[in-house]
């Protein structure tokens, strides 16, 4: 069972704001989903030594500089920018 408080705590971590209406529905949905996820707790798996899915190791880059992007390109999609910086504007 998932509580309102837990949903609010999780939402805060995930940077989602949840309205009072949404909270009721979300708590119900999440309880269902968590209940479903709980089915794995019926088993106690052996500690399978699962690392990465394709068992690769030591995939490295050489320390060689390549040209960076033009800052105009870097900033191209920014909702707000100023003097080459990304900007979060002050709002009233």
């Amino acid at each position, binding site marked *: 069972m*998932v509580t309102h408080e*837990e*949903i609010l*705590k*999780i*939402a805060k*971590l*995930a*940077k*989602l*704001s*949840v309205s009072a209406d949404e909270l009721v529905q*979300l708590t*119900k*949905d*999440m309880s*269902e*989903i*968590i*209940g*479903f*996820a*709980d*089915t*794995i*707790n019926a*088993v106690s*798996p*052996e*500690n*399978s*030594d*699962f690392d*990465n*899915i*394709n068992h*690769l190791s030591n*995939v490295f*880059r050489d320390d060689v500089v390549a040209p960076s*992007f033009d800052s105009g*390109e*870097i900033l*191209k*999609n*920014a*909702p*707000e920018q100023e003097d080459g910086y*990304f900007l*979060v504007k002050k*709002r009233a």
Partner: protein
Amino acid sequence: MKEYGKIKKLSGLLSSRQMSCEELTRMYLDAMESENETLNAYVSYTADLALETARRVDAKAAKGEALLPLEGIPMTLKDNISTKGMETTCCSKILKGYVPIYDATVWQILQKQNAVLLGKTNMDEFAMGSSSETSCFGGALNPHDISRVAGGSSGGVASAVGGNLAVYGLGSDTGGSIRQPASFCGLVGLKPTYGAVSRYGLIAYASSFDQIGPIASSVEDAALVYDAISVYDEKDSTSRGKTEPASAALQNDIRGMKIGVAKEYFEGIRGDVNDALQQVIRVYESLGAEIVRFGMPSLKYSLPVYYILACAEASSNLGRYDGIRYGFQAEHYSDPNDMVCRTRSEGFGDEVKRRILLGTYVLSAGYYDAYYKKAQNLRGEIVNAFQGAFEQCDVMLAPTVPMTAFPRNFTAKDPVETYQTDICTVPVNIAGLPAVSVPCGFDEAGLPIGMQLIGARFCEAKILNAAYQYEAATRETTFRAAETGVRL
């Protein structure tokens, strides 16, 4: 033997100059103009680029130069594959207006082949869903019956290819998102081995599950596209590339091939789907394959394991949409933190938020061991179970979806019921295996049924050959409802 593939046929027409690439491209663009409004397969058109590429191909053909396998073939990309200079939205409000400044590796490869990109296709928001109805553009419809969904999350690709608005398309498959819509739309959909195709430029949903692959109208076409895109990429640390080309392996005899059938895949599937699969088994027996039956008990944990791990990764992958560097930004806010919260709350749809919350929950202090860690251990067990299975057989056969395409706006009683439809597709993503969905009949309403052939890691050639042999043996009956000629 009959040729079912479109790609080779079209390529032949282009290189013999029986048809110009520009003509072919215009046919598709015209069809999109008139039919996309109904199907809602495409969310953006790239007509100028398509025609420009087509003219380049024609110039090459005019000089008598040989064409590459995918050269001049009109195609589409799911809208989560980054295309430089072309809007890439994941069908989410939060990415509306986002124009990548770099190309996904698969798109780079295809550009080198002069693939003719017609436009970007619809999908569930951030690839989370199985109907493509969580798209901020509305769902893509099933060309077999427009009262039904095309499936998801790569529903737009399936709708476009099924409706002959593209010859093939690239989708992505995290828990079945290529195979399920392929199955719903009577198409061939290949989910390659994890690592076979570069993920660089694919907007991540769940990084250890995501894999790009083709949706096409024949096994041969799927194989040709797979061969082109399964190339090692130094930009993706998890990339390995293919071990052998698949299209060259399509004529191999399958007599003596051992086809594994795990009973867990058949539990709870709809009767007509089961009947279709039993018929498939008989076809394979008639082709000289041997059916091996066994059980894989750990498969029953696939769904919760998948949802826990995929959502955990998603919650992290989707943290970056904060309204600062790209995409949507909330208009009203009090301070930077409030801006981020409002941007995310207004920008993400409900299903995406649910999955972010689930993922955050299972990773958070106090729950990590009970959910994330345990699911990770079970993932290891499922990997081992498949390894054991492939000691007994060459390929495995299973249904792709326990049912056929559901009606539009189908509302499940809760999110979990919707998740259940992924039960047959998620195991291979958990284990990183290749699987191809192939049409294998129709239900009473005339909707396609799909089967999947699953292989051991990097055994794409094997499963595609098995699929090809089935297709060759049954094409006349299986395809009665879907005439798959070229647009001529």
